[in-house]
């Protein structure tokens, strides 16, 4: 299991991500179903966080999982984990959709302020607590630039313009924050191999 504790129950006999990907290459629908159950709640959370609109988030998820089905054989394990591949695809699809929307700013504001309905939230666990702790350990200004880049898809120049800080300052904050985040999270299990 990658990290989303709220996902379907797993056991030691549950197939690994790599096994599911191998079965996907052979067009095994059950593998796609299992992968969906494993990652859809986290992917939905990320898409809703970026897009603000659950309907748009649903479109993004559909795009990503259909692409995973079609491009499973192109997955290269040396370039990152399956979880990172899927979450990266969700983020890219969401940001593409966000940029295409006319009311970019309005949507971004909604995304930042919209509370996720309690009924939709799947209970979190140790992994979330660990990540939360890592993020909270970052100075506010480092967390701000990282979140603007990751959740809003802004470039370093756009961030510099938005927070009215020199470009060099933005790059430094981003670098220091990411180093700290990586160090804090290092050594934690991220994926079932």
């Amino acid at each position: 299991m990658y990290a989303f504790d709220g996902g379907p129950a797993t056991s030691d006999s549950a197939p690994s991500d790599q096994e599911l990907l191998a079965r996907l290459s052979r067009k095994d629908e059950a593998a796609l179903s299992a992968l969906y159950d494993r990652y859809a709640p986290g992917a939905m959370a990320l898409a809703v966080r970026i897009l603000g609109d659950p309907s748009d988030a649903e479109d993004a998820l559909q795009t990503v999982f259909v692409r995973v089905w079609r491009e499973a054989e192109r997955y290269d394990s040396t370039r990152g984990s399956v979880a990172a591949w899927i979450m990266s695809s969700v983020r890219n699809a969401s940001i593409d959709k966000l940029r295409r929307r006319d009311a970019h700013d309005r949507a971004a504001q909604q995304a930042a302020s919209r509370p996720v309905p309690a009924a939709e939230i799947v209970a979190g666990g140790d992994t979330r607590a660990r990540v939360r702790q890592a993020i909270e350990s970052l100075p506010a200004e480092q967390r701000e630039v990282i979140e603007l880049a990751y959740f809003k898809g802004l470039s370093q120049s756009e961030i510099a313009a938005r927070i009215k800080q020199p470009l060099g300052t933005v790059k430094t904050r981003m670098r220091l924050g990411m180093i700290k985040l990586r160090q804090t999270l290092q050594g934690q299990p991220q994926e079932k191999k």
Partner: protein
Amino acid sequence: MSHEDFLNLAPVYALGALDGDDLAQFRGHLPGCRSCQTTVREFEEAGHELALDLPPVTPPPGLKEKIMHAVRAPQQGQVIPATFGFTRVAAIAAVLALAVSTWFLRDAYQKLALKDGAFTQLHKEREEQLSTLRNVEADLKKKVEDYKKAQDALKEMSERVLTRTEEVARLDAEKKRLEGEMARTAKDIERLKKMDALIRDIKASVVALKGTDLAKDATGRVFWKDQDVVFIADLPPLPAGKVYELWALVDGAPGPVPAGIYDASGNKTADYSKLAQGAKIKGWAISREEKPVDAPTEILFLPAP
């Protein structure tokens, strides 16, 4: 840019936030640097941990089924019922044709998938270029605004200069007018001084003039010495287009000699004189004429008896 510099850019690249020149240089460096590739991958993994901070959200109930339906769609084949004779052969041929078509479709689909990947990369690059363009556009907008402000300031300054120039021109014209007036006044003063000197000169001759039947109430007096003449008069107003002409009665001359053109108050208005130097003047007369002439027509004044 050194390897250290590229390593420093790796976290920003992993977040997808690198743009402009930095991005171009990093992309040029990355394919040949295994260390940077590893670092980028590590930061990408760390970046995606951010998503874990979000409370998981259960997707809508129908989404999974929609996805499964979407992936099934291209695989669904056509069922050919088995019948008799020719129909069966045709059905087998159709199945074979379908199989061959499916093989070609699959090949085409794989090529399409590859193209789709390339398209995704191109799309990402396009977004980055758009971002750069947006920055350039914002910069240009600011420059245009600055230019407009400078243009407005220049226009305002130009208007002020124009107003000042008009003021200077108006003052210059006023100065010229006053200078002309001063010159005329100085000339009048000079003339009046000469008249005063002549009137006070004990050696000057004087004669009172008397109106003829044409102007019985008119009066006048002429002072003169040598060529200097002062004429003082109270004559009837002149009709439009007429002038008063002063005449000298010179000893030995066959008739009156023109001595100048005057207005009703006795002010000289034209220096029309044919008096010769040293002429011996016996008296004066005034006539009313259309224009300066050499022989009088309407005599108004004659010397008083």
